């Protein structure tokens, strides 16, 4: 009998385990992918806010010069406005995974998490 014929011989419980297992793996893989969606905003070296890039929101971070405005939209992160004179972190635009925008005068940093290869886990 062919391999395909064997598949037809599967019992209902076999299919249940097969599909359930695949769903569980897919779910876990989704969780792993979510690690790259982490956004960490720090102010004065302290963690101001840790959130996910999946939730659209606008965050006002108060610093010594004023308010640094951070925008999270459609899974992306950027510094929208900053009271600093050079506007380096604003011009950086949308952050790539693993990138950090540093608004130094206002002592704000925005970190886009990355799912990096981690040798410790292996």
């Amino acid at each position: 009998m062919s391999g395909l014929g064997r598949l037809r011989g599967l019992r209902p419980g076999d299919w249940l385990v097969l599909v359930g297992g695949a769903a569980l793996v897919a779910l876990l893989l989704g969780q792993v992918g979510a690690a790259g969606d982490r956004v960490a905003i720090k102010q004065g070296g302290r963690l101001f806010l840790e959130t996910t890039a999946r939730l659209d929101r606008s965050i006002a971070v108060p610093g010594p010069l004023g308010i640094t405005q951070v925008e999270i939209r459609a899974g992306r992160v950027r510094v929208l406005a900053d009271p600093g004179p050079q506007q380096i972190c604003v011009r950086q635009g949308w952050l790539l995974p693993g990138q950090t925008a540093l608004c130094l005068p206002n002592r704000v940093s925005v970190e886009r998490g990355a799912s990096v290869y981690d040798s410790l886990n292996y």
Partner: protein
Amino acid sequence: MTHSTIDLAVTAEDRHIATLAAAAVGLTLVEAAIPLPLPGVKPGLANIVTLIVLYRLGWRAAVWVSLLRIVAGALALGTFLSPTFVMSLAGGLASLAALGALVHLPKTLIGPVGLSLLAAFAHIGAQLGVVSVWLMPGVNLLPLLALFLGAAWLSGLVNGLVVANLLEIEK
């Protein structure tokens, strides 16, 4: 056959179990020689033997074959009483426990493929449990869990189909 066959009935079963365990050890050694991308991701071919024994001779025989395979395989590979052995034993015991529970389910409900998959999940679950509790406490194993569970799914499916085929041929 002579009447002595009857006298040797128990011994024959012992021999049968030893032969099957030897086959399982053989598969373990063959498997160890296959280069694999990640340590811990293995096809688990010896579980084919365990499942065949479970269907043909029952759970107690499967426990014997499996434990003999784990100990003899570890002795042959030089990993006896090492962390590798502990992980192998933990995985083996977990899948035997799962099979012991599942074997009572009606055959029309679940077949070798389901049993193979659940045994593979129990196996890798126990192994990652050992790793997180004893070997690498505090390490986030979630990314590895997805990977290993995916590998267990694939190998469980393939081994289950092999067992289903072998049982069909043996009939």
